């Protein structure tokens, strides 16, 4: 529900309570005024009745509509004016109606008279009906006006807020441009904009330093490794090295190479995560796959691995071409590395998916973690355990699906484009 409607509804609810209380007060006030007026009216009529008695020298009982005067005999006390309610036959309506009644015993001239005056009461429920009806109509009018005007006003008042939302939605770290907000005249929105501005600036600078760190870490690591490797190579050149010394040097070199590859793979992974490979283009996967398979032919021949391919021509996929090459290379490499001697690799590609099957021992670890970093099934020395993590990451940024299964003694990795 829109904020403005929520606020409006809440406002209407509060108004309803106020209207109910207001209705009761109005009712009471009106009632009081009416009773007061009625009594004043009766008192005025009493004055004219007394004048009439004086004028006519009334000595018989007098009864007309809404008036009854009875002359009293003997010595009677005068009484104060009393008001009461009673039910009297209404002359024109011909039915009993509630009336106000004034009773008094008054001495006019030298006789005492009992005077009763009636007047039609304005009924309480008539007043209630009137009050209710007018309040209800007012309330309905108020609701409609508030809803409509609130909606229109919100378009103007919330304009800066919506603009901010739009800017946040379009915010991208890669574009690397600052979000600059227009000043609104609402303090809350200015505050919000200031926070968002500070936050996005922080995010941008953190992202920037993370990227730089990745680059620098890779650089700073490669240089000392390069130096060490060179020193070892120079050491190898020296005379009179024993065989043990040579093999120590070589094994040290191998470890350095591994470390260097690890650094490169990690930095590649971070770069893919940072979405630094974004030059999406049409990549001819069929051509790429055939080319890379040819590159690996020597290796498969060496391990006597039979490679069967069924590649549809001109399968084109939209992705970064560098990532495409890395993905295919890693998948083929993986299929060769975890294969048996005299094993088999079967590659099928259609324009929907790429399937690479290879023979090999079943996984000892959980297949679910196969694509995670450093989850190597066998701690084979030459593998650094990042190949499939990189493939997974590439699939993620290219919106492909990747899955693994082991069936008929074959590892099967499927990439769905």
């Amino acid at each position, binding site marked *: 529900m829109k904020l403005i409607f929520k606020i409006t509804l809440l406002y209407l609810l509060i108004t309803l309570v106020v209207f109910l209380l207001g209705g009761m007060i109005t009712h009471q006030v009106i009632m009081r005024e009416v009773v007061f007026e009625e009594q004043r009216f009766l008192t005025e009529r009493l004055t004219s009745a007394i004048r009439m008695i004086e004028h006519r020298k009334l000595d018989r009982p007098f009864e007309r509509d809404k008036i009854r005067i009875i002359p009293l005999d003997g010595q009677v006390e005068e009484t104060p004016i009393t008001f009461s309610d009673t039910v009297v036959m209404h002359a024109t309506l011909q039915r009993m109606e509630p009336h106000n009644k004034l009773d008094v015993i008054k001495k006019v001239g030298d006789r005492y008279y009992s005077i009763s005056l009636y007047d039609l009461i304005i009924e309480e429920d008539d007043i209630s009906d009137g009050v209710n009806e007018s309040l209800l109509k007012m309330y309905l009018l108020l609701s409609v006006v508030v809803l409509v005007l609130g909606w229109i006003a919100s378009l103007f008042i919330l304009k800066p807020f919506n603009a901010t939302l739009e800017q946040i939605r379009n915010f991208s770290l890669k574009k690397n441009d600052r979000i600059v907000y227009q000043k609104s005249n609402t303090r809350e929105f200015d505050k919000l904009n200031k926070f968002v501005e500070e936050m996005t600036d922080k995010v941008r600078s953190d992202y920037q330093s993370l990227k730089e760190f990745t680059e620098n870490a890779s*650089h700073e690591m490669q240089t000392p490794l390069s130096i060490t490797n060179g020193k070892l190579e120079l050491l190898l050149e020296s005379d009179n090295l024993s065989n043990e010394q040579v093999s120590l040097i070589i094994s040290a070199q191998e470890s350095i190479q591994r470390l260097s590859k690890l650094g490169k793979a990690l930095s590649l992974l971070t770069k893919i995560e940072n979405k630094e490979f974004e030059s999406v283009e049409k990549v001819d996967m069929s051509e790429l796959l055939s080319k890379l398979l040819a590159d690996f032919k020597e290796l498969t021949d060496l391990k006597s691995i039979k490679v069967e391919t069924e590649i549809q021509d001109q399968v084109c996929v939209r992705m970064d071409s560098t990532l495409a090459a890395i993905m295919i290379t890693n998948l083929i490499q993986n299929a060769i590395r975890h294969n048996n001697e005299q094993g088999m690799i079967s590659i099928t590609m259609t324009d929907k998916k790429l399937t690479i099957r290879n023979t090999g021992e079943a996984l000892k670890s959980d297949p679910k973690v196969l694509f995670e970093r450093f989850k190597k099934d066998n701690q084979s020395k030459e593998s650094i355990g990042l190949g499939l993590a990189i493939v997974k990451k590439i699939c993620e940024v290219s919106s492909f699906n990747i899955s693994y299964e082991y069936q008929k003694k074959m590892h099967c990795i499927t990439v769905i484009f």
Partner: protein
Amino acid sequence: MKLLVVEDQAELANNITSYLSKEGYVCEWCSGYHQAIEKLAGFDYDIVLLDLMLPDGDGLDILRFLKKEYPDTGVLILSAKNALDDKIHGLDLGADDYLPKPFHLSELNARLKAIYRRRHLGGTHDVVFNEITINTETMEVTVNGKPLDLTRKEYEMLLYMVVNKSRVLTKQSIAEHLWGDYMDSVDSFDFVYQHIKNLRKKIVQAGGRDYIQTMYGSGYKFNPQVS
């Protein structure tokens, strides 16, 4: 051959110069952008080894300067950045080759010699070693004048060993030279062994001497002093 090594890491430069000095190259070293520009303006070099990340400037600017002022000087970029953009950019600007760190010094040597051969076309494309002659343009190899039928990889391996003669070449460095980065499995070492075996056999059968000496551990040496 006269070389200028532009590299801010003194130890790395030290490795390079001491390794290459044994080849009889004249190596000079400078550690930064300004020093490099000064040296290049004052002296002639055959090849410049260029690190792209320098403390006081961008290596690519040195490359631009060289291509403008001294187009005859060869340039080999050494970089730890390993960013593909840098590589492509560098080669586009006219660098002869690009070698990511860390590298084998023997690989560096082979690349330098290849650049030198390409740049100094005055004479011949032949790399001659005793009875073995390697034509780097046609990729033909002869032993005592008789052509030797080598596969592509055997040819590359022979050339690599000949330009790095008398040096210990580890299987790792040979494998990387032949297959690049993606051949990282131990299998490639067996593969190196296979190729070495075949190459040896072919040379000996053609009447050449067996210069390839197996070093204990996992290395080889192309030894001119073989009896």
